[in-house]
């Protein structure tokens, strides 16, 4: 995803900084300064790190679990965990790649637990299945275009959920979160070539699943 896309428009909200634009050299330097300050005892400055990455963290978790509240809890846990282990962050990688890895692990743990709970007792909750993870509303769209866009958003959400875990991770991090292939490889702990293969397979799967709806949306676009 292009680095110039710096904002998202959550429902009923004002502009929020786009997290994928944070991984620039200047911002990396800011991250390092903040981490040094926190480790030196200025705990309050961790709030600045949280503010910088909370949108990215929440979005990434939401892309995985498809539930707004769960995504918030997961990303908050990830921030607390990152704080606990901040002294282990050696600065060899960017802070956000290290932090994204923590979020992904939290997401995986959550999904495992949820799957177990479902097997034992609960059927999937309907609202989770229907949740669209993309902002589909657009004031400039007519009603037909908006409906087609919403439909495509729903199908894309479902298609992403059906992807195997690694393909989903790679696709979300690269095409949705805007990380470079090398950064995705760092987050996932895989080789860049492996990440490319995951993204390629994910794209083909999405194409197969979405093409009929895509044609429909294109008709109204």
């Amino acid at each position: 995803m292009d680095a110039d896309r710096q904002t998202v428009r959550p429902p009923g909200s004002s502009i929020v900084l786009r997290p994928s634009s944070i991984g620039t050299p200047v911002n990396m330097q800011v991250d390092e300064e903040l981490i040094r300050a926190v480790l030196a005892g200025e705990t309050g400055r961790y709030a600045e790190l949280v503010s910088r990455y909370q949108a990215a963290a929440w979005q990434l978790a939401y892309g995985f679990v498809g539930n707004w509240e769960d995504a918030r809890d997961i990303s908050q846990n990830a921030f607390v965990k990152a704080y606990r282990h901040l002294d282990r962050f050696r600065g060899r990688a960017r802070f956000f790649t290290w932090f994204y890895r923590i979020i992904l692990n939290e997401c995986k743990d959550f999904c495992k637990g949820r799957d177990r709970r479902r097997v034992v007792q609960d059927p999937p909750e309907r609202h989770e299945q229907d949740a669209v993870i993309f902002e589909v509303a657009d004031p400039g769209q007519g009603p037909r275009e908006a409906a087609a866009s919403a439909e495509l958003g729903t199908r894309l959400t479902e298609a992403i959920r059906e992807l195997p875990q690694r393909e989903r991770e790679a696709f979300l991090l690269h095409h949705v979160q805007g990380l470079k292939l090398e950064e995705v490889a760092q987050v996932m702990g895989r080789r860049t070539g492996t990440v490319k293969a995951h993204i390629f397979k994910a794209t083909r799967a999405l194409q197969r699943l979405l093409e009929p709806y895509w044609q429909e949306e294109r008709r109204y676009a």
Partner: protein
Amino acid sequence: MHEELFLARLKRWLKKHPLLGPSQEQGAAFTEDVMRRIRAEQAPSPQTVPIFAPRLAWGMGLAAACLLAVIILKPGPTDPLKLTQAIEEEWNILEAVEQEVDLDGGFLEDELEQWDSLVLAEAVEDVSDEEEVERLLDLLSEMGEEPALEEGGSELEDLLEEFRLLDEAEFTG
């Protein structure tokens, strides 16, 4: 549709329709929640907050030190005080049986142990003359010896004299 064309359209669509994100208000509350949790982790838990007043804490420390001192200084089996008491007791026993203690520089405890067994072996049984006579008569009877009793003197004295003569004759013969 060609893969590259599909990907280009997908990316364009994603650019127009990004992932849902939190509002500024939600973001601020989020940061606040995280920081509250972090501060809670840093603050000592209620169980570890010092609940004792300083004086009580000092008192408990002193008690612990006393206990430690008692444990360290508790008399062992070979401590000098106990050994002295043991010697004194043994000395009293020996005096009671009219034995002289000749300590020739050996280890005191060993000496005392030896004296113990010696005293027990040499202790004089306190029996009356009548009992001793009865025992000797029983013994003579078992051996088939009948003492020849002479006239005069007390019966008891005569018997004892007879036995003494018998013993001497037996040992020298």
